[in-house]
């Protein structure tokens, strides 16, 4: 059937149907969460107290180093080396951040250059990955074709080993492709991040088939259904992919791939600055805080969306 076979009113009817199905699907998801939050199983008081103690203990183990870094960045030089160490500073000062900016001003290459490099890597890497991974995940999740099962298996197996295993051949391949000493050496491999593809595929499986069929009857080709039906529905999944990629790329220092000074990322430049030994402990803390703020706030903003995606992360 082609779309010419439909009159305008019939098309409108179909569009309405699609809309209604979307609403149903989304509200069913939300209902699940709401219903859950209301239920609370009864518990004994002593159990509650034990629970709070365990959570407090491990919570402080988890938070202590981060809080210490943050407060260290707000301490003056004399207070960092006070004995015994204090978690919270008596006098809050921003001198470490001021020092950092002065040190940055003295570098040969302006810091904005490093910042733009990191931004380029993070932006191109993340956007490219989200687009390519979703485009690939859609047929793998929703359609049947020869080879699909094999690819799905390969993706699952590739989750089972870390990049450390392949670093030597990867380096050779990147140098054969002529990507050494360019930011593409980091951006392009990031596009092929398999955990992202896997999470996206798992999330897409939950999209009701009726929606896609309705779009097909309406005359949409596969690319159109992908762009206008699937992509808006998997927003939680691509926000998750953004968080994961952001964490990886934001902190990258170029490793053994980038040599030219004005192509190097921010994290490399900041690390050079704080390599000045113990006298720069405060500045180092300021650097850590700056590098931490961005991925942490991206996570804070998108936490619920990320959990929504992770709910479908299971392996069968």
């Amino acid at each position, binding site marked *: 059937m082609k779309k010419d076979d439909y009159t305008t009113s019939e098309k409108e009817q179909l569009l309405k149907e699609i809309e209604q199905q979307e609403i149903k699907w989304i509200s069913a998801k939300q209902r699940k969460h709401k219903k859950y939050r209301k239920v609370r*199983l009864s518990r004994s008081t002593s159990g509650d107290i034990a629970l709070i103690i365990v959570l407090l203990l491990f919570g402080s183990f988890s938070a202590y180093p981060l809080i210490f*870094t943050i407060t260290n960045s707000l301490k003056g030089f004399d207070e960092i080396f006070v*004995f015994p160490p204090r978690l919270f500073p008596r006098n809050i000062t921003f001198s470490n951040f001021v020092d950092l900016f002065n040190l940055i001003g003295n570098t040969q290459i302006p810091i904005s250059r490093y910042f733009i490099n990191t931004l380029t890597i993070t932006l191109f890497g993340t956007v490219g990955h989200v687009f390519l991974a979703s485009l690939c995940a859609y047929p793998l999740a929703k359609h049947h074709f020869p080879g699909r099962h094999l690819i799905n298996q390969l993706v699952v197996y590739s989750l089972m080993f*870390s990049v450390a295993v392949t670093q030597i*051949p990867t380096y050779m391949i990147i140098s054969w492709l002529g990507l050494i000493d360019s930011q593409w050496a980091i951006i392009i491999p990031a596009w092929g991040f398999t955990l992202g593809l896997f999470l996206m595929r798992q999330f897409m499986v939950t999209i009701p088939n009726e929606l896609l069929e309705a779009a097909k009857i309406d005359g949409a080709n596969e690319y159109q259904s992908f762009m206008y039906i699937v992509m808006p529905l998997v927003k939680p999944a691509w926000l998750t992919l953004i968080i994961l990629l952001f964490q990886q790329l934001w902190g990258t220092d170029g490793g053994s791939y980038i040599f030219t000074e004005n192509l190097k990322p921010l994290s490399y430049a900041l690390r050079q600055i704080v390599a000045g030994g113990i006298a720069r402990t405060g500045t180092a803390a300021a650097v850590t805080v700056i590098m931490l703020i961005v991925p942490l706030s991206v996570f804070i903003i998108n936490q619920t969306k990320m959990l929504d995606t992770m*709910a479908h992360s*299971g392996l069968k």
Partner: protein
Amino acid sequence: MTTNTVQIAENFVKPTLLQRMKKKKVYYSMILPFMIIFTIFTVIPVLMSFFLSFTSFDMLQAPKFIGLKNYINLFLNDDVFLIALKNTIILALITGPISYMMAFLFAWLINELSPKIRWFMILIFYAPSISGSAYLLWLLIFSSDMYGILNAYLIDLNLINSPILWLETPKYALVILVIVQLWLSLGVSFLAFVAGLQTVDKTLYEAAAVDGIRNRWQELWYITLPQMKSQLMFGAVMQITNALGIGIVSVSLLGFPSVEYSGHTIVTHLMDFGSTNSTRLEMGYASAIATILFVMMLGSNLMVQKLIKRVGK
């Protein structure tokens, strides 16, 4: 049967694989871009690593086939590799199961807190794993002089008289790595568990209470865990891969090489031979190390998958 239907049946031939693929070509066009990158940066490297492990290769001359010699050298002549293997196995056996259980336990404990508190606890537990290089703060905690945070507290409490050289004493190396690794370990699998627990069907609990489930442990084992089996498997994959891949943390905290190779792992051994910054450039040998690590990761993953399938039975 009329002649018409017979004719149709005769004309109907099962489409060949190529024909079926042609019909679905739009799907191939969609997966192609990602699959090319996936093949170049994941599939081919694994195969290359496997083949190079049977060769002697220094990146300057063509690889020379030497059979199993690399593997034989690793196990018979390379004492440092055996230390690395031992350390990796010890670290994985401790941090793997503990981090896995911790991720589940904390996800389970915060599951019934009010949404706002739960949101905050997730942030606290997950923050270390997204903090990038913030784990370097542990250098300050374990620092060897009296300004090292741990030393300072211990001296202040009169537990020790002089500072302990935490990072330079071999017997503390693995303990420190375990602590820092556990600190970093509540990552993606923790989030998967938190999310998975929210999708567990609550009506089953009521049914179970009627059926005679008495305490929360029984409830956990018979109701919650079986429903979360798929997330449990996913989490296991993530934790095992991380536990066997400890290396960069060791190099940044204990230095390279660490004192008496006390914090040496397979990954640091691999970096020693295979990293382009190292002077050795014995790529065949390094590939053999990588292949062993690959087999260990894949093997333990598949083994644990089988174990988890039994949960709740």
